[in-house]
């Protein structure tokens, strides 16, 4: 902060300068982020459709219809299930990997790169890769499971495993990204703390609970929030792997929104109402998280 206060602000001539620097970016931001956000709210109270230039104000009709739209309810429920069920693996697996790598294993950079690599792929590439691996008849996944004596099935066609399979592919995709974040966080923890703990006889799990986890809390919070916001918007994996099937077992909120607006009904008003419901859920959830977690971040 001292850097900021040192800048002299006596001359009138330079008063516009900061705004000129900000102008191009803020213009971009206002036109393509802020305006669409508010315009979406407006559209959600209309009967706008794709390709129709005139539309009317319909009040809360779109929101009322959502109350009766059972497929929307199912998609919200699936999104919530995915979000909750994927959180533990997405938080814990990269953390375990990061702690193992942080012990100073040989080839650390190479191993980190190996885990990070899937994150450089697009969701479509990830989806197609797993579609082929999981092919129920000729895919290698089932072949190796069978030869190890495990039961096999059509993982993506079975309603009881489809969502878990999508979670598996997501973990494979994003784990390396969170691993890198965790590693950076772990490296900021002073070694002396572990040495002191070791002298007191605390090693392994005890030092993990007493040192690593508390000091990593800001990083964990970041990973948690990032993952939750991303999870509420899951679309690509589902679009490629299951199209929401079998039945509606993996239909998600964004997929339902996409189909309502651009595939089946071209109903922009209704889709905008869904978007705002989803937005409200995310905002509510974020506020709740900060309230719950804020109380615990001071030690």
């Amino acid at each position: 902060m001292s850097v900021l206060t040192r800048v002299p602000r006596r001359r009138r001539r330079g008063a516009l300068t900061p705004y000129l620097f900000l102008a191009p970016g803020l213009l971009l931001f206002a036109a393509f982020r802020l305006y669409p956000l508010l315009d979406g709210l407006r559209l959600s109270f209309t009967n706008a459709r794709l390709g129709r230039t005139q539309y009317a104000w319909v009040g809360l009709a779109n929101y009322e219809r959502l109350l009766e739209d059972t497929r929307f309810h199912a998609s919200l429920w699936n999104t919530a299930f995915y979000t909750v069920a994927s959180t533990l693996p997405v938080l814990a697996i990269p953390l375990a990997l990061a702690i193992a790598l942080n012990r100073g294993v040989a080839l650390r950079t190479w191993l980190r790169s190996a885990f990070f690599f899937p994150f450089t792929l697009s969701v479509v590439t990830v989806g197609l890769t797993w579609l082929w691996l999981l092919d129920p008849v000729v895919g290698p996944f089932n072949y190796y499971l069978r030869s190890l004596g495990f039961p096999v099935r059509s993982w993506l066609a079975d309603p009881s495993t489809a969502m878990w399979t999508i979670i598996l592919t997501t973990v494979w995709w994003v784990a390396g990204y969170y691993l890198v974040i965790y590693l950076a966080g772990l490296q900021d923890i002073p070694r002396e703390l572990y040495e002191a703990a070791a002298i007191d006889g605390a090693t392994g799990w005890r030092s993990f609970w007493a040192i690593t986890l508390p000091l990593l809390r800001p990083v964990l919070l970041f990973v948690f929030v990032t993952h939750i916001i991303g999870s509420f918007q899951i679309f690509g994996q589902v679009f490629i792997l299951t199209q929401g099937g079998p039945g509606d077992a993996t239909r998600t909120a964004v997929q339902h929104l996409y189909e309502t607006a651009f595939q089946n009904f071209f109903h922009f008003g209704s889709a905008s109402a869904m978007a705002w419901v989803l937005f409200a859920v995310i905002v509510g959830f974020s506020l709740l998280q900060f309230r719950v977690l804020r109380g615990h971040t001071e030690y």
Partner: protein
Amino acid sequence: MVVLAGLWLAPALWVVVTSLKPTPDIIRTPPEWIPWPATLEHYHEVLLSSSRTARIGRAFLNSAIVSVGAAVIVVFTSAMAAYPLARMRFPGRDLIFALLVGSLMIPGAVVLVPQYVLTQRLGWLSTYQGLIVPEAALTFAFGVFLLRQFFLTMPGELEDAARIDGANAWDIFLRIVLPLSQPVLGALAIFSFRSAWNDFLWPLIAVNRPEMFPLPVALAMLRGAYSSESYGPIMAGAALSALPLLLVFLVANRRIVEGVRLGGVKG
């Protein structure tokens, strides 16, 4: 650990192996991990095939134009915006910064429909600018956040010296701040290139002419164009789409890690 890392890479390796096998060998069990005899027929097919849906070559070019365009815009607008936010005092500064950071919470899916309406009204559907500008707007706030973190840590002496020599803010920005920030600007460029290269949902709706499809959309269409047994061409397309970022990643590994670190941890 090494075994686990190997397992982690196995799916990606399997894609490459599959793409190099002649069609009859692909579905043979047990799985063969050495593609011998190898063939490039699938690459030839997806790159040069005349079928409209299966033209990955053009999609590759589209993706390159869009991703480079978005990265250039993001780096310049974010750097220009982050500089006064980090190094100047003016009314509204904290409010603007809070607005930008808060917007990181806005899910992209929420603005999907109105952004489509806007893009349509501008006549930008199925155009490069219709992909580049929204992509850049999406990453801009993150870029400001990342660069501001970095600008805050720069020592003020060089700026002070330049100011005494009569340099104005623009000179200082161009001649001192930008050159000193090359690593973090590089990290941001890679980050925004990656997010534009891999984005799927926006191009899926904003482009309806096949010759304008970027790679992820073209790949998704490729899947529909072949029967499910034809994994060869699909996997060749998947491998090709991964190539540019793999190269960037191999060359700039440390820079990417540093960027992730700055964006994630220092926040």
